[in-house]
């Protein structure tokens, strides 16, 4: 319960509890000491009272003056502890052992035979006692008999004194009252002091906790300046640890910033390389087209087809560049089956150089509504990668399939098989180190952008078949 409270409450409460426990223990010890000293003091008082009675009572006894002896005993007993409550009594006993007078005549009746008789369960000595006789009973009460002698040694009578056990007991209610007053006073004084001390003690801890809570949200340098300075070694250690933590965090933040900067630079590099790659891809085909135009441009149909090819190639480059500019929407045309032929024409030079035959399959069952630029980019990248993967004398198969739901373009090659894990590795590879990765990375990004997929066909055995599949919509990027 206490441990769940904050330190600024725990410490004063703990102090108060300590005061309470200390006061109770001190009271208990005091009561024991008081009880012992009170008993000794009471017995000393009895000694003095008996001496007084013996000194005063002799002439009264000689004069046989019962009334004056009674007055003396009544007044003297009043000085004994416990007398007001009837716990102490004095009596003068005559030489015959009978009560001459008593401070409490109702208990010690005048004329009653006493010496040699049982009194409160204990036998009293017979007459003839010449020295003080004392008995401490089991219950703690005290009984004593003191002879009264004349100057010449004649026994005139005896003083009987009885003090009940209650007189010697500690006055627990009074002690408890005093202890309670002391406790209340101590708590009243110590509680505010405890609160003040607790606040002072816990303020650095509280500030540390507050600073720790702000770590990560505020500047570490600014927070370090607010670290509390304390002489307490433990708190100083905590403060040092927090400062060290802030230093580590600052170093880590700087490292992250450097890493981010490097990443940005790398991304810029990758993007530049990708753009160069995307622009370079159709350029090879366009250069071939210009050569064709130069060599066979006299023929009208060749010239027309070649100029159209050059025009679409340039349009693709323009679209690629435009795609890099955010917030610029270019009027896109939908994909056309001829786009596949264009792309095949663009890679034809590369295929011939590698002596690779490209087989083409076209199954368009529904109108194509996907944008042409990204699809041409994807087809060109996938074909160039497939040619590279197939190697010399390899074989590449392309297929464009469209229905009302999806447009799917796949490229298969008989090079080293690529599974999903290998594809992820190729895509994740730095473009600078693996140019092959750029095309595939662009394909995956475009598939993600068009809410489609770009995965290897798991059913392809001993070959690689990559499948690019997007919804057949005008704007696949927006959900239907």
């Amino acid at each position, binding site marked *: 319960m206490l441990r769940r409270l904050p330190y600024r409450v725990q410490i004063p409460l703990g102090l108060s509890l300590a005061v309470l426990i200390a006061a109770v223990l001190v009271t208990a010890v005091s009561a024991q000491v008081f009880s012992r000293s009170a008993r000794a003091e009471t017995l000393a008082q009895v000694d003095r009272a008996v001496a007084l009675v013996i000194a005063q009572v002799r002439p009264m006894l000689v004069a046989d003056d019962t009334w004056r002896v*009674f007055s003396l005993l*009544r007044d003297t007993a009043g000085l004994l502890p416990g007398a007001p409550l009837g716990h102490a009594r004095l009596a003068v006993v005559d030489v015959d052992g009978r009560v001459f007078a008593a401070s409490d*005549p109702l208990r010690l009746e005048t*004329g009653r035979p006493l010496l040699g008789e049982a009194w409160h369960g204990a036998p009293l000595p017979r007459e003839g006692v010449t020295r003080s006789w004392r008995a401490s009973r089991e219950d703690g009460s005290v009984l004593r008999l003191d002879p009264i002698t004349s100057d010449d040694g004649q026994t005139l009578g005896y003083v009987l004194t009885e003090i009940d056990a209650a007189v010697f007991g500690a006055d627990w209610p009074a002690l408890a009252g005093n202890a309670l007053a002391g406790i209340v006073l101590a708590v009243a004084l110590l509680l505010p002091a405890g609160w003040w001390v607790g606040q002072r003690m816990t303020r650095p801890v509280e500030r540390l906790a507050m600073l720790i809570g702000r770590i990560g949200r505020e500047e570490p340098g600014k927070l370090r300046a607010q670290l509390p300075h304390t002489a307490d070694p433990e708190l100083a250690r905590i403060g040092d640890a927090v400062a060290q933590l802030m230093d580590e965090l600052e170093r880590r933040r700087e490292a992250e910033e450097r890493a981010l900067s490097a990443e940005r630079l790398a991304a810029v590099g990758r993007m530049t390389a990708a753009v160069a790659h995307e622009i370079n891809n159709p350029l090879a085909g366009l250069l071939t087209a210009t050569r064709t135009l130069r060599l066979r441009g006299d023929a009208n149909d060749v010239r027309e087809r070649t100029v159209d090819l050059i025009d679409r190639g340039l349009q693709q480059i323009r679209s690629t560049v435009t795609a890099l500019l955010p917030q610029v929407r270019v009027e896109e045309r939908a994909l056309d089956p001829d786009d596949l032929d264009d792309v095949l024409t663009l890679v034809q030079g590369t295929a011939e150089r590698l002596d690779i035959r490209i087989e083409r399959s076209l199954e368009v069952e529904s109108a194509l509504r996907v944008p042409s630029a990204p699809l041409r980019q994807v087809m060109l990248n996938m074909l160039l990668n497939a040619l590279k993967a197939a190697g010399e004398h390899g074989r590449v198969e392309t297929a464009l399939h469209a229905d009302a739901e999806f447009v799917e373009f796949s490229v298969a090659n008989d090079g080293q098989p690529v599974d999903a894990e290998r594809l992820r590795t190729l895509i994740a590879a730095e473009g600078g180190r693996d140019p092959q990765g750029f095309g595939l990375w662009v394909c995956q990004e475009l598939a993600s952008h068009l809410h489609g997929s770009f995965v290897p066909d798991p059913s392809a055995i001993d070959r690689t078949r990559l499948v690019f599949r997007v919804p057949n919509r005008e704007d696949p990027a927006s959900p239907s």
Partner: protein
Amino acid sequence: MRRRDCLGLLAALAWPAFGTAAESGPDRTLRIGLTPVILADQAAFLTRWAAYLEERCGVAVRFVARESYQPVLDLLLTQRVDAAWICGYPFVLHERDLSLLAVPSWADEPLYRSYLIRSRRLAPDIQGWHDLRDRVLAYSDPLSNSGWLVAQAQLSRAGLSAGDLRRSFFAHGHRNVAEAVAAGLAHAGSIDGYVWETMRLQGMGATDDTDVVWRSEEFGFPPLVTLRQPSHARVDALREALFAMPRNPEGRALLEALNLDGFVPGDASLFNSIRLQAMQIPDSGVQG
């Protein structure tokens, strides 16, 4: 205050006391012997009464206190006081040497009774004098009629002697008798009925713990007396001042504090019953 004032003058009825007073003084001082229990408030009452009497007697008045009858009687017989308030028994004992100055009147009569009282807690079975065998009896004073002489006569009549009592003692005053019996120091006590009734009237605790079990015949009230000699003018003035007390407010207030009606001349015959009773007691000192 009046309750305690009263007790101051109950002394005149044989109450023992402590304290002294100068027995010699200027010739023009009127000295009156009393047996009061000297307490501060009683001293204040006596101061007021002395001032009252001085104003009327034309001389200084001084009360001289002694604790029992005998010393006061000695002072009177040796002419060291002009008057003394004593009991009827010492009056009849020294009748040849004394003359009545004034007799207090209580309940319209200069008479009073003796009571036998018992301790309510210690001896509730005592019904009369015959029950006092092997009991402790408290007397007031050896020269007190109600506090000793009556008790001797009644014990004799009950067939008891001093030896039949377990113990007896003098308490040096009627008030002390009441307190001794109330405390249980004595089973029973012989006491002045006027004193006991006045204590009860004033609500004093001792009467709550005692019961009256017997009342005597009426006796002459304890009188103020002087030596039998030619009267002195200042004594006559004192007598007149005492008789006149009921006739003025201050005097009535003083009498009310004493629980008395006033003072009357009285007559020696008032004390015949005491005289007869004393003659029946062998050691009384009164002879026929």
